Protein backbone atom coordinates (compact mmCIF):
# COMPACT_ATOMS: atom_id res chain seq x y z
CA UNK A 1 0.00 0.00 0.00
CA UNK A 2 1.25 3.43 -0.86
CA UNK A 3 2.31 5.78 1.86
CA UNK A 4 0.09 8.75 2.55
CA UNK A 5 2.91 11.07 1.52
CA UNK A 6 3.09 9.45 -1.94
CA UNK A 7 -0.67 9.68 -2.31
CA UNK A 8 -0.63 13.37 -1.41
CA UNK A 9 2.22 13.98 -3.85
CA UNK A 10 0.19 12.23 -6.56
CA UNK A 11 -2.82 14.40 -5.72
CA UNK A 12 -0.66 17.50 -6.10
CA UNK A 13 0.04 16.36 -9.66
CA UNK A 14 -3.71 16.01 -10.30
CA UNK A 15 -3.32 12.23 -10.53
CA UNK A 16 -6.95 11.03 -10.50
CA UNK A 17 -6.02 7.59 -9.15
CA UNK A 18 -4.28 9.14 -6.15
CA UNK A 19 -7.15 11.56 -5.59
CA UNK A 20 -9.46 8.56 -5.50
CA UNK A 21 -7.18 6.76 -3.01
CA UNK A 22 -7.10 9.77 -0.71
CA UNK A 23 -10.88 9.93 -0.89
CA UNK A 24 -11.27 6.23 -0.08
CA UNK A 25 -9.03 6.56 2.99
CA UNK A 26 -10.66 9.61 4.52
CA UNK A 27 -14.20 9.78 3.12
CA UNK A 28 -15.86 7.53 5.77
CA UNK A 29 -14.44 9.61 8.65
CA UNK A 30 -15.19 12.93 6.99
CA UNK A 31 -18.68 11.79 6.02
CA UNK A 32 -19.29 10.99 9.68
CA UNK A 33 -18.19 14.53 10.50
CA UNK A 34 -20.36 16.00 7.73
CA UNK A 35 -23.41 14.12 8.97
CA UNK A 36 -22.90 15.64 12.41
CA UNK A 37 -22.81 19.17 11.08
CA UNK A 38 -25.67 18.84 8.60
CA UNK A 39 -29.40 18.84 9.02
CA UNK A 40 -29.94 16.32 6.24
CA UNK A 41 -28.12 13.53 4.44
CA UNK A 42 -28.19 15.59 1.22
CA UNK A 43 -26.52 18.52 2.98
CA UNK A 44 -23.90 16.16 4.39
CA UNK A 45 -23.14 14.79 0.93
CA UNK A 46 -22.82 18.32 -0.45
CA UNK A 47 -20.48 19.21 2.40
CA UNK A 48 -18.41 16.09 1.78
CA UNK A 49 -18.13 16.92 -1.93
CA UNK A 50 -17.21 20.57 -1.38
CA UNK A 51 -14.81 19.62 1.40
CA UNK A 52 -12.84 17.19 -0.73
CA UNK A 53 -12.65 19.69 -3.62
CA UNK A 54 -11.29 22.23 -1.12
CA UNK A 55 -8.82 19.67 0.22
CA UNK A 56 -7.52 18.88 -3.30
CA UNK A 57 -7.24 22.57 -4.13
CA UNK A 58 -5.38 23.39 -0.94
CA UNK A 59 -3.09 20.37 -0.63
CA UNK A 60 -0.18 22.60 -1.59
CA UNK A 61 -0.72 24.55 1.63
CA UNK A 62 -0.30 21.50 3.86
CA UNK A 63 3.02 22.04 5.65
CA UNK A 64 3.66 18.43 6.72
CA UNK A 65 3.59 19.61 10.31
CA UNK A 66 1.15 17.72 12.46
CA UNK A 67 -1.43 15.19 11.37
CA UNK A 68 -2.86 15.30 7.88
CA UNK A 69 -6.19 14.08 9.16
CA UNK A 70 -6.30 16.95 11.64
CA UNK A 71 -5.57 19.43 8.85
CA UNK A 72 -8.29 17.88 6.71
CA UNK A 73 -10.71 17.89 9.60
CA UNK A 74 -10.15 21.63 10.12
CA UNK A 75 -10.99 22.25 6.46
CA UNK A 76 -14.27 20.37 6.79
CA UNK A 77 -15.19 22.05 10.08
CA UNK A 78 -14.40 25.50 8.64
CA UNK A 79 -16.48 24.72 5.58
CA UNK A 80 -19.38 23.62 7.76
CA UNK A 81 -18.97 26.90 9.66
CA UNK A 82 -19.00 28.89 6.41
CA UNK A 83 -22.14 27.13 5.28
CA UNK A 84 -23.77 27.77 8.61
CA UNK A 85 -22.82 31.46 8.54
CA UNK A 86 -24.21 31.85 5.02
CA UNK A 87 -27.65 30.66 6.06
CA UNK A 88 -27.60 31.94 9.59
CA UNK A 89 -31.02 32.77 10.91
CA UNK A 90 -31.70 34.69 14.03
CA UNK A 91 -32.99 32.14 16.41
CA UNK A 92 -34.63 33.19 19.56
CA UNK A 93 -32.40 31.56 22.09
CA UNK A 94 -33.79 31.08 25.51
CA UNK A 95 -31.37 31.46 28.31
CA UNK A 96 -31.38 28.22 30.25
CA UNK A 97 -29.60 27.00 33.28
CA UNK A 98 -26.15 25.81 32.34
CA UNK A 99 -25.23 23.36 34.99
CA UNK A 100 -28.01 20.90 35.04
CA UNK A 101 -26.23 17.71 35.93
CA UNK A 102 -27.65 14.71 34.11
CA UNK A 103 -29.15 11.96 36.15
CA UNK A 104 -27.63 8.50 36.22
CA UNK A 105 -30.60 7.30 34.20
CA UNK A 106 -29.69 9.65 31.34
CA UNK A 107 -26.07 8.54 31.33
CA UNK A 108 -27.07 4.88 31.38
CA UNK A 109 -29.50 5.51 28.55
CA UNK A 110 -26.68 7.04 26.53
CA UNK A 111 -24.57 3.93 27.02
CA UNK A 112 -27.19 1.80 25.35
CA UNK A 113 -27.67 4.04 22.33
CA UNK A 114 -25.74 3.47 19.10
CA UNK A 115 -23.52 6.02 17.36
CA UNK A 116 -25.94 6.20 14.46
CA UNK A 117 -28.82 7.02 16.75
CA UNK A 118 -26.86 9.74 18.55
CA UNK A 119 -25.93 11.17 15.17
CA UNK A 120 -29.57 11.25 14.14
CA UNK A 121 -30.48 13.05 17.37
CA UNK A 122 -27.74 15.64 16.86
CA UNK A 123 -28.90 16.23 13.30
CA UNK A 124 -32.38 17.03 14.60
CA UNK A 125 -31.02 19.91 16.72
CA UNK A 126 -31.61 23.47 15.51
CA UNK A 127 -28.70 24.72 13.38
CA UNK A 128 -27.06 26.93 15.98
CA UNK A 129 -27.36 24.39 18.78
CA UNK A 130 -25.92 21.73 16.53
CA UNK A 131 -22.95 23.93 15.61
CA UNK A 132 -22.22 24.84 19.23
CA UNK A 133 -22.60 21.25 20.40
CA UNK A 134 -20.33 19.83 17.70
CA UNK A 135 -17.64 22.48 18.04
CA UNK A 136 -17.58 22.36 21.83
CA UNK A 137 -18.18 18.71 22.65
CA UNK A 138 -16.56 16.92 19.71
CA UNK A 139 -13.92 19.36 18.41
CA UNK A 140 -13.06 20.74 21.85
CA UNK A 141 -13.26 24.48 21.20
CA UNK A 142 -13.85 26.78 24.17
CA UNK A 143 -16.92 29.00 24.53
CA UNK A 144 -14.70 32.02 23.96
CA UNK A 145 -13.50 30.59 20.66
CA UNK A 146 -17.05 29.62 19.74
CA UNK A 147 -18.21 33.16 20.39
CA UNK A 148 -15.69 34.46 17.87
CA UNK A 149 -16.34 31.73 15.32
CA UNK A 150 -20.10 32.04 15.36
CA UNK A 151 -20.21 35.74 16.09
CA UNK A 152 -22.23 35.27 19.27
CA UNK A 153 -21.67 36.17 22.89
CA UNK A 154 -19.80 33.72 25.08
CA UNK A 155 -22.85 33.48 27.31
CA UNK A 156 -25.03 32.66 24.32
CA UNK A 157 -22.65 29.87 23.40
CA UNK A 158 -22.93 28.45 26.92
CA UNK A 159 -26.66 28.78 26.83
CA UNK A 160 -26.90 27.12 23.40
CA UNK A 161 -24.80 24.22 24.61
CA UNK A 162 -26.95 23.74 27.69
CA UNK A 163 -30.08 23.87 25.59
CA UNK A 164 -28.65 21.40 23.07
CA UNK A 165 -27.67 19.00 25.82
CA UNK A 166 -31.09 19.32 27.40
CA UNK A 167 -32.83 18.49 24.14
CA UNK A 168 -30.50 15.56 23.54
CA UNK A 169 -30.97 14.21 27.02
CA UNK A 170 -34.73 14.46 26.75
CA UNK A 171 -34.63 12.57 23.49
CA UNK A 172 -32.28 9.94 24.84
CA UNK A 173 -34.47 9.48 27.91
CA UNK A 174 -37.64 9.34 25.80
CA UNK A 175 -36.08 6.74 23.54
CA UNK A 176 -34.92 4.69 26.50
CA UNK A 177 -38.40 4.74 28.07
CA UNK A 178 -39.92 3.73 24.75
CA UNK A 179 -37.64 0.72 24.51
CA UNK A 180 -38.32 -0.31 28.11
CA UNK A 181 -42.06 -0.04 27.50
CA UNK A 182 -41.80 -2.17 24.38
CA UNK A 183 -39.83 -4.82 26.24
CA UNK A 184 -42.37 -4.89 29.08
CA UNK A 185 -45.27 -5.17 26.68
CA UNK A 186 -43.58 -8.09 24.98
CA UNK A 187 -43.25 -9.72 28.37
CA UNK A 188 -39.56 -10.15 28.24
CA UNK A 189 -39.06 -8.92 31.78
Amino acid sequence: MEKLKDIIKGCLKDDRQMQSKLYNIFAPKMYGLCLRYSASVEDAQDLLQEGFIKVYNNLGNFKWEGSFEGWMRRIFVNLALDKYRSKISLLSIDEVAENQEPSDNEINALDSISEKEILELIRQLPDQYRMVFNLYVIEGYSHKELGEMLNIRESTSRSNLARAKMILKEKVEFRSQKIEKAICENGKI
Partner: protein
Amino acid sequence: MERFEKNIQEKLRDFQVQPPGEVWGAIENQLVQKQGKKFLWLRIAAAILLLVVSITSLVLYLPQVRIAEPLAVMHISEDDFVPIYMVPSDTETKVEIISDLKEITESDVIYESEKTEIYAAVSMYTDETPGIDSDMFTDYSNISGLAELNPIKYESQLTYELSFSDGVQSSSIIALKGSDKDYFEDTETKLPSIEIIKTSDQSQRVFALSAYLAPQQSFRYQRNTTPISFEKLESEIFSFGAGIRFHYKLNSRWEVESGLGYNMIGQAVNGITAFSHPSMIPLYSSRGEVISSHPQSMRTSMGGIVFKNQSFYFADIASTRVDALKGSYDESNVNLLNKTATGLIQHFGYIEVPLVLRYKIIDRMLSLSVKSGISANFLYTSNVYLQGSAFSRPIGESTGISPLSWSGTGGLSLEYPISNRINIALDPTFTMFLTPMGQYRNLIRETYPYNYSLYMGIRYNL
Protein backbone atom coordinates in the same frame (compact mmCIF):
# COMPACT_ATOMS: atom_id res chain seq x y z
CA MET B 1 -16.30 17.94 30.60
CA GLU B 2 -19.36 16.14 31.85
CA ARG B 3 -19.66 12.41 31.50
CA PHE B 4 -22.57 12.89 29.12
CA GLU B 5 -20.44 15.03 26.82
CA LYS B 6 -17.43 12.76 27.12
CA ASN B 7 -19.56 9.78 26.27
CA ILE B 8 -20.85 11.43 23.10
CA GLN B 9 -17.39 12.66 22.15
CA GLU B 10 -15.96 9.16 22.45
CA LYS B 11 -18.75 7.71 20.39
CA LEU B 12 -18.72 10.27 17.61
CA ARG B 13 -15.22 11.72 17.33
CA ASP B 14 -13.98 8.98 15.02
CA PHE B 15 -17.32 7.67 13.89
CA GLN B 16 -17.17 6.48 10.28
CA VAL B 17 -19.91 6.12 7.68
CA GLN B 18 -19.32 4.93 4.15
CA PRO B 19 -20.62 7.68 1.82
CA PRO B 20 -22.73 6.70 -1.20
CA GLY B 21 -20.80 6.03 -4.39
CA GLU B 22 -22.26 8.95 -6.34
CA VAL B 23 -20.43 11.47 -4.13
CA TRP B 24 -17.06 10.45 -5.58
CA GLY B 25 -18.63 10.58 -9.06
CA ALA B 26 -19.69 14.18 -8.43
CA ILE B 27 -16.25 15.09 -7.04
CA GLU B 28 -14.52 13.51 -10.03
CA ASN B 29 -16.78 15.38 -12.43
CA GLN B 30 -15.97 18.66 -10.68
CA LEU B 31 -12.25 17.87 -10.77
CA VAL B 32 -12.42 17.20 -14.52
CA GLN B 33 -14.23 20.47 -15.16
CA LYS B 34 -11.83 22.38 -12.98
CA GLN B 35 -8.84 20.86 -14.70
CA GLY B 36 -10.31 21.90 -18.05
CA LYS B 37 -10.74 25.49 -16.84
CA LYS B 38 -7.36 25.53 -15.15
CA PHE B 39 -5.53 24.93 -18.38
CA LEU B 40 -7.89 26.96 -20.57
CA TRP B 41 -5.69 30.04 -20.92
CA LEU B 42 -2.57 27.91 -21.11
CA ARG B 43 -4.10 26.01 -24.01
CA ILE B 44 -5.19 29.22 -25.74
CA ALA B 45 -1.68 30.62 -25.33
CA ALA B 46 -0.23 27.36 -26.71
CA ALA B 47 -2.61 27.43 -29.68
CA ILE B 48 -1.71 31.07 -30.45
CA LEU B 49 1.99 30.26 -30.15
CA LEU B 50 1.54 27.29 -32.47
CA LEU B 51 -0.22 29.48 -35.01
CA VAL B 52 2.43 32.19 -34.83
CA VAL B 53 5.19 29.59 -35.32
CA SER B 54 3.26 27.98 -38.21
CA ILE B 55 2.67 31.29 -39.97
CA THR B 56 6.26 32.40 -39.44
CA SER B 57 7.55 29.09 -40.82
CA LEU B 58 5.17 29.38 -43.74
CA VAL B 59 6.41 32.86 -44.53
CA LEU B 60 10.08 32.00 -44.11
CA TYR B 61 10.23 28.69 -45.91
CA LEU B 62 7.65 28.95 -48.63
CA PRO B 63 9.01 29.97 -52.07
CA GLN B 64 9.48 33.69 -51.95
CA VAL B 65 6.44 34.85 -53.79
CA ARG B 66 6.44 38.54 -53.27
CA ILE B 67 4.12 41.27 -54.13
CA ALA B 68 5.77 44.12 -55.97
CA GLU B 69 4.81 47.67 -55.31
CA PRO B 70 3.18 49.03 -58.40
CA LEU B 71 5.66 50.81 -60.58
CA ALA B 72 3.01 52.80 -62.27
CA VAL B 73 -0.65 53.21 -61.68
CA MET B 74 -2.76 54.41 -64.50
CA HIS B 75 -6.12 55.92 -63.83
CA ILE B 76 -7.94 55.32 -67.03
CA SER B 77 -11.48 56.19 -67.80
CA GLU B 78 -13.46 55.52 -70.92
CA ASP B 79 -13.08 59.15 -71.93
CA ASP B 80 -9.29 59.03 -72.12
CA PHE B 81 -8.02 59.51 -75.56
CA VAL B 82 -5.63 56.90 -77.02
CA PRO B 83 -3.13 57.27 -74.26
CA ILE B 84 0.46 56.35 -74.71
CA TYR B 85 2.93 56.96 -71.98
CA MET B 86 6.62 56.33 -71.92
CA VAL B 87 8.32 55.65 -68.61
CA PRO B 88 11.74 57.26 -68.66
CA SER B 89 14.22 54.65 -69.77
CA ASP B 90 17.04 55.80 -67.55
CA THR B 91 19.22 53.15 -66.02
CA GLU B 92 18.40 54.33 -62.48
CA THR B 93 14.85 53.03 -62.69
CA LYS B 94 15.27 49.72 -61.00
CA VAL B 95 12.39 47.40 -60.46
CA GLU B 96 11.77 44.42 -58.30
CA ILE B 97 13.13 41.14 -59.51
CA ILE B 98 10.27 38.70 -59.46
CA SER B 99 11.31 35.24 -60.46
CA ASP B 100 7.99 33.51 -60.01
CA LEU B 101 5.95 35.68 -62.32
CA LYS B 102 4.20 34.01 -65.16
CA GLU B 103 5.89 34.56 -68.48
CA ILE B 104 4.16 37.00 -70.69
CA THR B 105 3.19 35.59 -74.01
CA GLU B 106 1.83 37.39 -76.98
CA SER B 107 -1.72 36.82 -75.92
CA ASP B 108 -1.00 37.92 -72.34
CA VAL B 109 0.34 41.26 -73.34
CA ILE B 110 -3.00 42.71 -74.16
CA TYR B 111 -5.37 42.91 -71.28
CA GLU B 112 -8.95 43.72 -71.63
CA SER B 113 -10.96 45.17 -68.87
CA GLU B 114 -14.63 44.42 -69.12
CA LYS B 115 -15.58 47.77 -67.75
CA THR B 116 -13.29 50.22 -69.45
CA GLU B 117 -12.35 48.39 -72.64
CA ILE B 118 -8.76 49.33 -72.17
CA TYR B 119 -6.05 47.57 -74.08
CA ALA B 120 -2.56 47.78 -72.73
CA ALA B 121 0.83 46.63 -73.83
CA VAL B 122 4.09 46.66 -72.00
CA SER B 123 7.62 46.88 -73.20
CA MET B 124 10.97 47.53 -71.62
CA TYR B 125 14.66 47.28 -72.00
CA THR B 126 16.40 44.30 -70.59
CA ASP B 127 19.98 43.32 -69.89
CA GLU B 128 19.86 40.87 -72.68
CA THR B 129 18.36 43.19 -75.22
CA PRO B 130 20.15 46.49 -74.86
CA GLY B 131 19.06 49.16 -77.18
CA ILE B 132 15.64 47.86 -77.97
CA ASP B 133 13.35 50.79 -78.46
CA SER B 134 9.68 51.27 -78.71
CA ASP B 135 9.65 50.46 -82.39
CA MET B 136 10.20 46.88 -81.42
CA PHE B 137 6.73 46.77 -79.92
CA THR B 138 5.28 45.85 -83.20
CA ASP B 139 6.96 42.52 -82.73
CA TYR B 140 5.12 41.00 -79.81
CA SER B 141 7.53 38.16 -79.35
CA ASN B 142 10.26 40.52 -78.15
CA ILE B 143 8.40 41.52 -75.03
CA SER B 144 7.49 38.05 -74.01
CA GLY B 145 8.50 37.18 -70.49
CA LEU B 146 9.37 40.69 -69.43
CA ALA B 147 6.42 42.04 -67.54
CA GLU B 148 2.89 41.60 -66.41
CA LEU B 149 0.15 44.13 -66.15
CA ASN B 150 -2.54 43.26 -63.67
CA PRO B 151 -5.76 45.02 -62.88
CA ILE B 152 -5.79 46.08 -59.24
CA LYS B 153 -7.87 48.27 -57.04
CA TYR B 154 -6.36 51.53 -55.98
CA GLU B 155 -8.24 54.23 -54.13
CA SER B 156 -11.55 52.81 -55.23
CA GLN B 157 -10.63 52.92 -58.90
CA LEU B 158 -9.73 50.20 -61.29
CA THR B 159 -6.07 50.61 -62.13
CA TYR B 160 -3.27 48.47 -63.43
CA GLU B 161 -0.27 47.21 -61.62
CA LEU B 162 2.89 46.65 -63.57
CA SER B 163 5.30 43.99 -62.42
CA PHE B 164 8.58 43.33 -64.14
CA SER B 165 10.37 40.08 -64.70
CA ASP B 166 13.91 39.08 -63.97
CA GLY B 167 16.59 41.14 -65.62
CA VAL B 168 14.46 44.13 -66.47
CA GLN B 169 16.13 47.43 -65.76
CA SER B 170 13.92 50.06 -67.22
CA SER B 171 10.69 50.22 -69.01
CA SER B 172 8.10 51.86 -71.13
CA ILE B 173 4.39 51.55 -70.75
CA ILE B 174 1.92 52.00 -73.49
CA ALA B 175 -1.74 52.02 -72.78
CA LEU B 176 -4.19 52.23 -75.59
CA LYS B 177 -7.82 52.57 -76.05
CA GLY B 178 -8.83 50.77 -79.15
CA SER B 179 -9.75 47.44 -80.43
CA ASP B 180 -7.18 46.51 -83.00
CA LYS B 181 -3.48 46.04 -83.39
CA ASP B 182 -3.06 49.30 -85.18
CA TYR B 183 -2.44 51.19 -81.92
CA PHE B 184 1.21 51.82 -82.68
CA GLU B 185 0.15 53.94 -85.56
CA ASP B 186 -1.39 56.39 -83.09
CA THR B 187 0.32 59.48 -81.86
CA GLU B 188 2.32 59.37 -78.68
CA THR B 189 -0.17 61.31 -76.61
CA LYS B 190 0.76 61.30 -73.01
CA LEU B 191 -1.75 59.84 -70.65
CA PRO B 192 -2.49 62.81 -68.38
CA SER B 193 -3.47 60.93 -65.29
CA ILE B 194 -0.63 58.47 -65.15
CA GLU B 195 1.53 58.73 -62.10
CA ILE B 196 4.62 56.95 -61.00
CA ILE B 197 3.94 55.73 -57.50
CA LYS B 198 7.26 54.14 -56.89
CA THR B 199 10.17 52.96 -58.88
CA SER B 200 10.99 50.37 -56.41
CA ASP B 201 13.48 47.68 -55.68
CA GLN B 202 11.67 46.67 -52.59
CA SER B 203 8.94 44.18 -52.04
CA GLN B 204 6.28 44.35 -49.37
CA ARG B 205 4.35 41.80 -47.37
CA VAL B 206 0.83 42.87 -46.76
CA PHE B 207 -0.69 42.70 -43.30
CA ALA B 208 -4.21 43.60 -42.29
CA LEU B 209 -6.35 43.64 -39.17
CA SER B 210 -10.06 43.02 -39.16
CA ALA B 211 -12.93 42.85 -36.72
CA TYR B 212 -16.20 41.05 -37.30
CA LEU B 213 -19.63 40.37 -35.90
CA ALA B 214 -21.35 37.22 -37.08
CA PRO B 215 -25.06 36.54 -36.54
CA GLN B 216 -25.64 32.82 -36.92
CA GLN B 217 -28.06 29.92 -36.82
CA SER B 218 -26.69 27.19 -34.61
CA PHE B 219 -27.61 23.53 -34.12
CA ARG B 220 -25.96 20.11 -34.03
CA TYR B 221 -25.59 16.90 -35.99
CA GLN B 222 -25.70 13.50 -34.30
CA ARG B 223 -23.80 10.72 -35.95
CA ASN B 224 -25.33 7.90 -33.90
CA THR B 225 -28.71 7.78 -32.29
CA THR B 226 -28.85 7.82 -28.51
CA PRO B 227 -31.10 5.78 -26.22
CA ILE B 228 -33.38 8.82 -26.21
CA SER B 229 -34.19 10.23 -29.61
CA PHE B 230 -33.63 13.95 -29.33
CA GLU B 231 -34.42 14.66 -32.94
CA LYS B 232 -37.86 16.21 -32.59
CA LEU B 233 -37.24 17.56 -29.11
CA GLU B 234 -34.45 20.00 -29.90
CA SER B 235 -34.13 22.79 -32.42
CA GLU B 236 -31.71 25.41 -33.72
CA ILE B 237 -31.18 28.81 -32.17
CA PHE B 238 -30.05 32.24 -33.29
CA SER B 239 -26.81 33.44 -31.75
CA PHE B 240 -23.71 35.56 -32.34
CA GLY B 241 -19.99 35.35 -32.80
CA ALA B 242 -17.44 38.16 -32.78
CA GLY B 243 -13.72 38.58 -32.90
CA ILE B 244 -10.60 40.04 -34.41
CA ARG B 245 -8.41 38.60 -37.15
CA PHE B 246 -4.90 39.20 -38.31
CA HIS B 247 -4.31 38.70 -42.05
CA TYR B 248 -1.13 38.03 -43.94
CA LYS B 249 -1.10 38.22 -47.71
CA LEU B 250 1.07 35.47 -49.17
CA ASN B 251 0.67 36.83 -52.70
CA SER B 252 -1.93 38.62 -54.74
CA ARG B 253 -4.31 35.64 -54.48
CA TRP B 254 -3.52 33.72 -51.32
CA GLU B 255 -3.96 34.97 -47.81
CA VAL B 256 -3.69 33.38 -44.37
CA GLU B 257 -5.47 34.67 -41.27
CA SER B 258 -5.72 33.95 -37.59
CA GLY B 259 -6.93 35.71 -34.45
CA LEU B 260 -9.20 35.36 -31.48
CA GLY B 261 -12.98 35.10 -31.46
CA TYR B 262 -15.86 34.41 -29.13
CA ASN B 263 -18.43 32.10 -30.60
CA MET B 264 -21.78 31.39 -28.99
CA ILE B 265 -23.49 28.22 -30.19
CA GLY B 266 -26.18 25.99 -28.77
CA GLN B 267 -29.68 24.71 -29.18
CA ALA B 268 -33.23 24.98 -27.89
CA VAL B 269 -34.57 22.10 -25.80
CA ASN B 270 -38.30 21.75 -26.37
CA GLY B 271 -41.12 19.83 -24.72
CA ILE B 272 -40.05 20.82 -21.22
CA THR B 273 -42.51 22.37 -18.83
CA ALA B 274 -41.15 24.48 -16.02
CA PHE B 275 -42.99 25.14 -12.80
CA SER B 276 -42.25 27.59 -10.06
CA HIS B 277 -43.60 28.07 -6.60
CA PRO B 278 -46.15 30.91 -6.53
CA SER B 279 -43.89 33.03 -4.36
CA MET B 280 -40.73 31.81 -6.09
CA ILE B 281 -39.39 30.23 -2.93
CA PRO B 282 -37.27 27.09 -3.11
CA LEU B 283 -38.68 23.60 -3.21
CA TYR B 284 -38.91 21.74 0.05
CA SER B 285 -37.99 18.20 0.85
CA SER B 286 -40.58 15.80 2.20
CA ARG B 287 -39.42 16.72 5.71
CA GLY B 288 -40.22 20.36 5.04
CA GLU B 289 -36.56 21.44 4.91
CA VAL B 290 -35.09 23.53 2.17
CA ILE B 291 -33.12 21.20 -0.03
CA SER B 292 -29.51 22.19 -0.47
CA SER B 293 -29.17 21.40 -4.14
CA HIS B 294 -31.57 21.03 -7.01
CA PRO B 295 -32.80 17.43 -7.04
CA GLN B 296 -33.18 17.22 -10.80
CA SER B 297 -30.88 16.81 -13.74
CA MET B 298 -31.53 16.38 -17.42
CA ARG B 299 -30.12 14.76 -20.52
CA THR B 300 -29.81 16.44 -23.92
CA SER B 301 -27.87 15.70 -27.07
CA MET B 302 -25.50 18.49 -26.00
CA GLY B 303 -24.59 17.13 -22.56
CA GLY B 304 -26.32 16.83 -19.24
CA ILE B 305 -27.97 19.79 -17.55
CA VAL B 306 -27.35 20.44 -13.86
CA PHE B 307 -30.04 22.74 -12.49
CA LYS B 308 -28.92 25.35 -10.01
CA ASN B 309 -31.95 27.57 -9.64
CA GLN B 310 -34.16 25.94 -7.04
CA SER B 311 -37.12 28.17 -7.77
CA PHE B 312 -37.97 25.99 -10.74
CA TYR B 313 -39.00 22.40 -11.17
CA PHE B 314 -39.02 20.72 -14.56
CA ALA B 315 -41.18 18.08 -16.16
CA ASP B 316 -40.57 16.40 -19.49
CA ILE B 317 -43.88 16.05 -21.28
CA ALA B 318 -42.47 14.37 -24.34
CA SER B 319 -39.84 11.93 -23.14
CA THR B 320 -37.89 10.84 -20.11
CA ARG B 321 -35.07 13.30 -20.19
CA VAL B 322 -35.52 14.73 -16.69
CA ASP B 323 -34.12 12.69 -13.81
CA ALA B 324 -34.73 13.36 -10.13
CA LEU B 325 -33.30 12.05 -6.91
CA LYS B 326 -36.26 10.15 -5.54
CA GLY B 327 -37.70 11.45 -2.31
CA SER B 328 -35.46 14.48 -2.30
CA TYR B 329 -38.38 16.81 -2.83
CA ASP B 330 -42.00 16.76 -1.89
CA GLU B 331 -43.74 15.51 -5.00
CA SER B 332 -47.17 16.41 -3.67
CA ASN B 333 -46.12 20.05 -3.60
CA VAL B 334 -45.50 20.03 -7.32
CA ASN B 335 -49.23 20.34 -7.90
CA LEU B 336 -49.13 23.64 -6.09
CA LEU B 337 -46.57 25.09 -8.44
CA ASN B 338 -47.30 27.52 -11.23
CA LYS B 339 -46.48 26.60 -14.77
CA THR B 340 -44.20 29.39 -15.90
CA ALA B 341 -42.65 28.68 -19.24
CA THR B 342 -41.67 26.02 -21.70
CA GLY B 343 -38.32 25.56 -23.35
CA LEU B 344 -34.71 25.71 -22.32
CA ILE B 345 -31.83 27.24 -24.23
CA GLN B 346 -28.37 25.69 -24.00
CA HIS B 347 -25.64 28.20 -24.74
CA PHE B 348 -22.01 27.25 -25.21
CA GLY B 349 -19.49 30.07 -25.32
CA TYR B 350 -16.26 29.09 -27.04
CA ILE B 351 -13.07 31.06 -27.36
CA GLU B 352 -11.97 30.37 -30.90
CA VAL B 353 -8.45 30.44 -32.32
CA PRO B 354 -8.76 29.98 -36.09
CA LEU B 355 -6.32 29.37 -38.93
CA VAL B 356 -7.94 30.21 -42.26
CA LEU B 357 -6.63 30.23 -45.81
CA ARG B 358 -8.26 32.42 -48.47
CA TYR B 359 -7.98 32.36 -52.22
CA LYS B 360 -9.13 35.34 -54.26
CA ILE B 361 -11.17 34.19 -57.24
CA ILE B 362 -12.24 37.58 -58.51
CA ASP B 363 -9.96 40.54 -57.96
CA ARG B 364 -11.98 43.58 -58.86
CA MET B 365 -13.42 46.50 -56.93
CA LEU B 366 -15.70 43.95 -55.34
CA SER B 367 -13.48 40.97 -54.76
CA LEU B 368 -14.62 37.42 -54.13
CA SER B 369 -12.60 34.83 -52.21
CA VAL B 370 -13.15 31.31 -51.03
CA LYS B 371 -11.97 30.49 -47.55
CA SER B 372 -11.37 27.36 -45.56
CA GLY B 373 -9.73 26.61 -42.24
CA ILE B 374 -9.71 24.97 -38.86
CA SER B 375 -10.23 26.35 -35.36
CA ALA B 376 -9.37 25.34 -31.84
CA ASN B 377 -12.43 26.00 -29.67
CA PHE B 378 -11.97 26.38 -25.93
CA LEU B 379 -15.12 26.02 -23.84
CA TYR B 380 -15.64 29.11 -21.71
CA THR B 381 -19.28 29.03 -20.60
CA SER B 382 -22.06 26.45 -20.80
CA ASN B 383 -25.06 28.20 -19.32
CA VAL B 384 -28.63 27.03 -19.60
CA TYR B 385 -31.52 29.50 -19.67
CA LEU B 386 -35.19 29.11 -19.08
CA GLN B 387 -36.89 30.83 -21.98
CA GLY B 388 -40.20 32.47 -21.26
CA SER B 389 -42.28 34.63 -23.55
CA ALA B 390 -40.97 37.78 -21.90
CA PHE B 391 -37.92 36.70 -19.94
CA SER B 392 -34.83 34.57 -20.01
CA ARG B 393 -33.47 33.29 -16.71
CA PRO B 394 -30.25 31.35 -16.01
CA ILE B 395 -31.17 28.07 -14.36
CA GLY B 396 -28.07 25.90 -14.56
CA GLU B 397 -25.30 24.68 -16.76
CA SER B 398 -24.50 21.94 -19.24
CA THR B 399 -21.97 19.35 -18.15
CA GLY B 400 -19.82 16.70 -19.75
CA ILE B 401 -18.60 19.04 -22.48
CA SER B 402 -15.07 18.70 -23.75
CA PRO B 403 -12.94 21.73 -22.82
CA LEU B 404 -11.29 21.70 -26.26
CA SER B 405 -12.95 20.92 -29.59
CA TRP B 406 -11.78 21.36 -33.16
CA SER B 407 -13.94 22.75 -35.92
CA GLY B 408 -13.65 23.17 -39.66
CA THR B 409 -14.91 26.20 -41.54
CA GLY B 410 -15.57 27.09 -45.17
CA GLY B 411 -17.26 29.86 -47.05
CA LEU B 412 -17.11 32.81 -49.37
CA SER B 413 -15.88 36.32 -48.74
CA LEU B 414 -16.99 39.46 -50.49
CA GLU B 415 -14.82 42.54 -49.96
CA TYR B 416 -15.34 46.09 -51.04
CA PRO B 417 -12.91 48.99 -50.47
CA ILE B 418 -14.38 52.09 -48.89
CA SER B 419 -11.03 53.87 -48.75
CA ASN B 420 -7.40 53.24 -49.59
CA ARG B 421 -6.87 51.20 -46.43
CA ILE B 422 -10.31 50.17 -45.27
CA ASN B 423 -12.45 47.42 -46.76
CA ILE B 424 -15.80 46.13 -45.67
CA ALA B 425 -16.46 42.41 -45.89
CA LEU B 426 -19.39 40.05 -45.91
CA ASP B 427 -18.62 36.35 -45.47
CA PRO B 428 -21.34 33.69 -45.63
CA THR B 429 -19.67 30.90 -43.64
CA PHE B 430 -20.42 27.34 -42.57
CA THR B 431 -18.68 25.92 -39.51
CA MET B 432 -18.89 22.42 -38.09
CA PHE B 433 -17.15 20.65 -35.23
CA LEU B 434 -14.70 18.00 -36.40
CA THR B 435 -14.49 16.39 -32.97
CA PRO B 436 -17.49 15.42 -30.81
CA MET B 437 -18.38 18.12 -28.30
CA GLY B 438 -18.87 15.63 -25.45
CA GLN B 439 -16.11 14.85 -23.05
CA TYR B 440 -17.18 11.25 -22.72
CA ARG B 441 -18.51 9.30 -25.66
CA ASN B 442 -21.04 7.50 -23.50
CA LEU B 443 -22.51 10.81 -22.34
CA ILE B 444 -23.03 12.53 -25.66
CA ARG B 445 -22.77 10.12 -28.53
CA GLU B 446 -20.91 11.95 -31.23
CA THR B 447 -22.72 15.25 -31.26
CA TYR B 448 -21.18 17.72 -33.70
CA PRO B 449 -22.43 21.32 -33.46
CA TYR B 450 -22.60 23.38 -36.62
CA ASN B 451 -23.67 26.88 -37.61
CA TYR B 452 -24.42 29.02 -40.62
CA SER B 453 -23.14 32.51 -40.08
CA LEU B 454 -22.77 35.79 -41.90
CA TYR B 455 -19.52 37.48 -40.91
CA MET B 456 -19.87 41.25 -41.18
CA GLY B 457 -16.41 42.72 -40.94
CA ILE B 458 -14.30 45.77 -41.39
CA ARG B 459 -10.69 45.38 -42.45
CA TYR B 460 -7.81 47.79 -42.06
CA ASN B 461 -4.82 47.22 -44.33
CA LEU B 462 -1.63 47.96 -42.41
